[in-house]
């Protein structure tokens, strides 16, 4: 099978960028990584990219194909060839390019370090050698534990494009992995890190991370889990959490979004005053519903009761989670018996 690729090249010594077209013959089963290997072996030895495991485990070979981040070793080329396409291969986005398809992962690792990517057991001694947890407790963090740190989710993260300091999907998915680990005792101090100005509330929910992740980590869903932990801990200092609070309150009071509450309750009354000219413009177009006569959903009592009922169930779950891992008995003989 003949494959043609247009590859974005960058030479840091001369600071030159160009696009080069390569055509090579490869086996039918060839992945994008195989094609790059053939080009490097047979055509241009200076072509630079990262690889190691060749089996979607090490996370080295993230790059873009037609603007979408993929693992080169997990991308079969046959469908592309059959569709008659000549894809553009370029380095991942949101990270500085070092050479050709290689990006500098340092900013990515710095964000990992920032989220405290290790278990904080609060210095407590485990009762028997180690903290033992139940299968269901492990299941709560398994999805996020699948991450191979390839960076594909970061590549197209829309919030990171606009705010390069945003902790981003990979680091925050790792955060969720610890937040939901029953052995972790980080509690509020851990959550404070994620509640910061470049934390969870920076995420714009573009869902590029879920779309791109080659390991099914669903980072956006992980971020929501961290957001939920922050919110349900009662940490409502951030505009993002206050925004969510208006929504919860709205469903309770009228069943519909209380739009007029969003601005003052998210940005604060003082900042809201600055928004008055803007609000007047909206009002003139008929975009501001009358706050004194809110539109109310029918059968609202159902929703109100539902809110209260679920809230009590949530509290029970939260308390159970905060109680920590199912501690095995301290006496090893007893432990043996219970096994």
């Amino acid at each position, binding site marked *: 099978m003949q494959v043609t690729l247009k590859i974005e090249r960058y030479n840091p010594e001369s600071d030159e960028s160009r696009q080069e077209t390569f055509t090579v013959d490869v086996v039918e089963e060839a992945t994008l990584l195989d094609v790059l290997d053939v080009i490097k072996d047979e055509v241009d030895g200076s072509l630079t990219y990262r690889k190691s495991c060749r089996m979607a485990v090490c996370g080295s070979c993230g790059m873009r194909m037609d603007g979408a981040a993929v693992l080169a070793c997990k991308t079969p080329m046959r469908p592309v060839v059959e569709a008659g396409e000549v894809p553009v291969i370029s380095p991942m986005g949101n990270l500085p390019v070092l050479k050709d398809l290689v990006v500098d992962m340092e900013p990515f690792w710095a964000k990992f370090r920032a989220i405290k990517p290790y278990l904080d057991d609060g210095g407590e001694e485990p009762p028997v050698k180690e903290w033992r947890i139940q299968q269901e407790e492990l299941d709560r963090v398994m999805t996020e534990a699948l991450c191979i740190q390839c960076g594909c989710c970061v590549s197209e993260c829309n919030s990171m494009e606009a705010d390069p300091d945003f902790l981003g999907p990979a680091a925050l998915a790792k955060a969720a992995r610890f937040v939901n680990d029953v052995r972790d005792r980080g509690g509020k101090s851990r959550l404070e890190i994620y509640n910061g100005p470049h934390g969870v509330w920076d995420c714009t929910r573009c*869902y590029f991370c879920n779309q791109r992740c080659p390991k099914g980590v669903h980072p956006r869903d992980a971020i929501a889990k961290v957001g939920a932990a922050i919110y349900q801990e009662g940490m409502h200092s951030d505009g993002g959490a206050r925004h*969510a609070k208006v929504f919860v309150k709205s469903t309770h009071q009228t*069943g519909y979004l209380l739009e007029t509450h969003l601005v003052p309750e998210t940005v604060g009354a003082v900042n809201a005053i600055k928004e008055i000219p803007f609000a007047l413009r909206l009002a003139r177009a008929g*975009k501001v519903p009358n706050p004194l006569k809110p*539109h109310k959903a029918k*059968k609202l009592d159902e*929703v109100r*009761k539902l809110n209260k009922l679920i809230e009590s169930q949530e509290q029970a779950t939260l308390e159970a989670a905060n109680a920590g891992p199912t501690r095995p008995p301290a006496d090893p003989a007893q432990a043996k018996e219970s096994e």
Partner: protein
Amino acid sequence: MKSSYAYYPGCLASLSQKELDTSTRAIADKLGMTLVDIPGFTCCGAGDVHEARPEYYLHLNARILGQAEQLGQDTLMTICNVCTLNLRQANAKLQADPELLQRVNRNLKEVGAASYSGGVDVRHLLWEIAEGDGYEKLKQIAEKPLTGVKIAPFYGCQILRPSRLLGFEDPDRPQSLERIIEACGAEPVDYPSKIKCCGFPIVLARAEVALGELIQPLAEAKEAGADAMVTPCPLCHLSLDAWQGKASREADMEFDLPIFHLAQLVGAAAGLSYDELQFKRHIVKAYPVTDKIYQGV
């Protein structure tokens, strides 16, 4: 396309984005779709309740789906990206897990709400008219082709991604809006950010980040020569339209780009008037384009 749907306008189209609800009802008539109102529907909770109170979100959406079922409808039609993802995600979860469905139904029953058996499909208006007989019908009703009008399609995020839950088309190379623009006799304009985010979910909590996101599609569409932009989402619309002035000041560029709701685009091609489609409710004045459409200037 079905002949009847349980119709879920969502709360924004019932409140500040009323023109979308009105236009949708108007084109449904032309298309021969019966929209059955869901009495007692509420907000789907958007990404916010979904994030802060995932269990409550799940129940709110199960309740809406149950109400649709109670009306004897097997398809619920949405007109908002965020509602679409929210409802489809809840639906997929409930359909895949009978135990969960049972638990949710127990709670619904306890508060006196309709239960849900899992038998409703959630579809966005866009999908119903972008292919098959819906598309044929659209071509038939588009008797006033918008000749010479250049329209930039803006998809927004939550109608495309994650495709595991939405899955109507290739999330990186969508074509549904382009096809609809063509059926309306206008010319689609291509630009890279048409699949990116408008920043709406964080426009209040992180204004600067959101404006940074909003500027991109506006600037690119303008650069590509668009007369107007069309979006299938009232939240995208709110940020592209109402926040356009702020984006314009931030970027120091004049955008002056009228933003159409999908239903307004279809309505205009179907001969519905400026007033019927309530273009006057927009913040960015629509008449530079609507004059071109209605008076051929």
